[in-house]
């Protein structure tokens, strides 16, 4: 795997922000496609276009056709029309889901270096742009390819929730012309009068994050219970099998001593159906999601602690 770093052009950034702002206020996620090309060891994302949302009256809407047409049109104006990934907005960091995994897998299967850009609008509104790029690790790709989600399969691959996604560092690049534009904008626009980042109120955000975390932990515990019952059933079944075989052997020795033909050795596996092992992929996803939530919460608290100490210093001088 080449060590790919993202080089995102500012156009992409602004487009993503705008797309969420306009269309995503009510619903959970907005999605779109990233276009660009691979340059040496960097993946450059030069443009993007949004995907319309699925509404009820758009049953016959053809996504593929929309994509094709868009790309064809963009090619006419010399915009890079190569797919390099897709972007999605997220709500408080809850993006590790089956759907994301599947989409990213299909993208990565087709194009090796594709990434998914996760944009967190709520965190951005709090003052710091939150844009992260993720890619599936090769191990996870292997597993998805084989679709073997049983516990044995995962044990073989030795994969933990930290090894599911790898984060790709993002750099923002600008051309000279855009630089000139930035100078111009700075000149003409007013100073940002809202320093959202220095806002002290934290309880709202904390509450919501913790709520989501609790939900996930509940899911996780249910999953664990399922797995425990499964392993208990399995061991019980093993015991029963063992007992049955023993009894058979005993009977056979008895019959032999009496001179009767031994009973046929029946196929134990047909008699005792092994219980269905629960798929472990969901557990992994939930674990990954919980990990993500915890990371976010920790970041948030560290920022807030800093702010509180600054407020203390300010009060001390008054």
């Amino acid at each position, binding site marked *: 795997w080449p060590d790919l770093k993202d080089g995102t052009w500012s156009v992409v*950034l602004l487009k993503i922000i705008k*797309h969420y*702002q306009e269309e995503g206020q009510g619903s959970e996620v907005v999605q779109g496609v990233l276009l660009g090309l691979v340059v040496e060891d960097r993946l450059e994302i030069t443009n993007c276009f949004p995907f319309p949302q699925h509404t009820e009256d758009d049953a016959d809407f053809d996504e593929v056709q929309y994509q094709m047409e868009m790309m064809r049109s963009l090619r006419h104006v010399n915009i890079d029309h190569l797919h390099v990934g897709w972007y999605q907005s997220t709500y408080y960091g809850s993006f590790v889901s089956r759907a994301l995994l599947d989409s990213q897998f299909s993208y990565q299967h087709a194009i090796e270096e594709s990434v998914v850009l996760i944009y967190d609008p709520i965190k951005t509104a709090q003052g710091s*742009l939150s844009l992260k790029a993720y890619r599936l690790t090769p191990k996870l790709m292997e597993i998805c390819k084989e679709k073997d989600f049983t516990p044995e399969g995962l044990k073989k691959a030795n994969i933990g929730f930290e090894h599911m996604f790898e984060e790709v560092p993002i750099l923002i690049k600008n051309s000279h*012309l855009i*630089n000139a534009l930035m100078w111009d904008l700075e000149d003409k626009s007013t100073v940002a009068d809202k*320093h959202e980042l220095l806002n002290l109120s934290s309880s709202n955000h904390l509450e919501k994050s913790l709520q989501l975390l609790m939900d996930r932990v509940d899911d996780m515990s249910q999953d664990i219970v399922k797995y425990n019952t499964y392993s208990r059933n399995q061991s019980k079944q093993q015991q029963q099998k063992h007992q049955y075989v023993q009894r058979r052997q005993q009977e056979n020795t008895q019959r032999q001593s009496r001179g009767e033909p031994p009973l046929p050795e029946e196929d134990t596996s047909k008699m005792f159906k092994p219980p269905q092992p629960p798929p472990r992929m969901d557990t992994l996803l939930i674990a990954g999601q919980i990990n993500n*939530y915890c990371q976010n919460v920790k970041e948030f608290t560290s920022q807030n602690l800093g702010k509180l100490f600054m407020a*203390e210093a300010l009060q001390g001088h008054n």
Partner: protein
Amino acid sequence: MTPIAGAQQRRSISPPPQKKPKTTSMQLRVNRGRAQHRAWRYTCQPKTAARRHSLSLSKMSVYGPVVKIHPVVLASICDSYERRNEGASRVIGTLLGTIDKHSIEVTNCFSVPHNESEDEVAVDMEFAKNMYDLHKRVSPTEVIIGWYATGFDITEHSVLIHEYYSREATNPIHLTMDTALQSGKMSIRAYVSAQMGVPGKTVGVMFTPLTVKYVYYDTERIGVDLLQRTRVLPNRTKGLTSDLSQVGGSAARVQDMLTTMLAYIDDVLSGKVAADNSVGRFLMDLVNKVPTISAEDFENMLNSNINDLLMVTYLSNLTQAQIALNEKLVLL
């Protein structure tokens, strides 16, 4: 609070600039007032002259709606200019947005391929219609409100293109962006067309300028702030920082602003710069904004907040350890 009062005091007792003969106290006060007034006028005049001059260049119009542009549009125009075909000197495209009673908000745009030569201009209309349809699927509230072109001036071809766009939208606006930086700045101007000439005879078209403003959503503002920081770095790239360093950066910026203010106040105190009452009032507001809470109450609030945050950190660490443990157990 004391420095400001001091500045005001000093201004009121500053002696008049010209030497005046000894007069009664009443007259002295009047003279002082007039002298002050004259001094104020002298200091203000060059400023207003400069302001008027810049007004004449950037805000030429009075009539017509205000055009509010989002930075997305400008960045897209720059981008499409950089990707233009060989030999094309300028790029044109459609502007999408929403129309309000008094203002037009431009929120999106896409470029349209076109060929321009000495005597004719060809624009791919089909393409424009297609793209507009595609865009409409994503954001159904956006309508065609005009078109843009890069370049400094308005040419005759612009008139033709403008005619086409007036068929698509009522009273389209035309936006020019000087990407060749002819005047040293990237002048972004908007025009609307108006008929001129003698009625009955050949009617011409005149482009009247409109005021241009930049508007941002909150999140856009933050994104643009990040982009602003790239322009000072030599290789024009910037990574995204995280965590406490961002708070530190933000605090550093506020500190810079405070130092500028302190420098200004020092200047006023030492008499180098004439004090401005409105600035003084702002400063008073600023200092009063720090709420006066009794030390005890503040301690309590601070401690409870810190406790909350620490508890949450502890819990999240615990959860992470838990799931890691679970992972290891399952793999046994």
